[in-house]
């Protein structure tokens, strides 16, 4: 059990999730810094991620795609804002088209990762995600399809979109 707390601030559209690990900070950082490790946890088993570019420097890009059971692909990107290895990583996280180019119609989340050494030799990891708007949050969560909560939300999203189109 590694998640120690979750803080949600609906007004700021921010969620912060904190987890504790027995491993030292360097090993936890590797989970982000090493693309082969990153792709093992970023996507769920049914939609494994493949990291293409991985340039963890300010202004650098990380690009990846996830492949579904039907061979369907979902591409995404990060734009690295700040890096301070092995303690801090900030990036914008968005969706991409089939060619891996950022999709301007899709929302962007701001993600801030902070790793802190613990007295017991372990590491605390805090991940804060901030959405630009409620609509953006809906869209992002609908894209969270892979986590198995999709069917429902996709259909409802589609419905709401259709309604919006008529009105």
């Amino acid at each position: 059990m590694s998640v120690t707390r979750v803080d949600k601030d609906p007004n700021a559209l921010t969620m912060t999730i904190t987890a504790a690990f027995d491993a030292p900070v360097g090993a936890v950082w590797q989970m982000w810094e090493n693309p082969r490790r990153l792709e093992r946890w970023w996507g769920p088993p049914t939609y494994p991620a493949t990291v293409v570019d991985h340039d963890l420097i300010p202004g650098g890009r990380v690009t990846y795609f996830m492949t579904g059971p039907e061979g369907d692909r979902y591409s995404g990107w990060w734009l690295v804002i700040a890096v301070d290895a092995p303690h801090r990583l900030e990036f914008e996280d968005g969706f991409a088209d089939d060619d891996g180019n950022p999709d301007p119609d899709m929302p962007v989340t701001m993600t801030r990762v902070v790793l802190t050494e613990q007295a017991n030799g372990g590491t605390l990891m805090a991940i804060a995600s901030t959405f630009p708007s409620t609509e953006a949050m809906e869209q992002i969560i609908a894209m969270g399809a892979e986590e198995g909560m999709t069917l429902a939300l996709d259909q409802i999203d589609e419905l709401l979109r259709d309604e919006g189109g008529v009105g």
Partner: protein
Amino acid sequence: MAAQEQVDLLFHALADATRRDIVMRTMQGEHSISSLARSYAMSFAAVQKHVALLERAELVIKRRQGREQLVRGNVEAIRDVHALLDQFEAVWRSRIDRFGEILATDWNEGGTT
């Protein structure tokens, strides 16, 4: 109601094709239970059961007008920010579960670099 319980209810409610269809229809406009029963060739009681489940999951809102029970979709529920954050939390929780498992395995194997 606990968030997890609410999410469970929501997915249980939407796991059935008829119930999903009821949500779709009632999001577009108010329907009486008897008119829904006609569209599905189902008994009034059967549709009423489906509607009750949807109501508990807060996906629809029911009101009474004379003898009729009218049902409409609860768009606000779907748009509820708290609910959305709960969904997002689930995404990150599963990521962190995988993260922790990989880390534990790799680190115990001697902290590969």
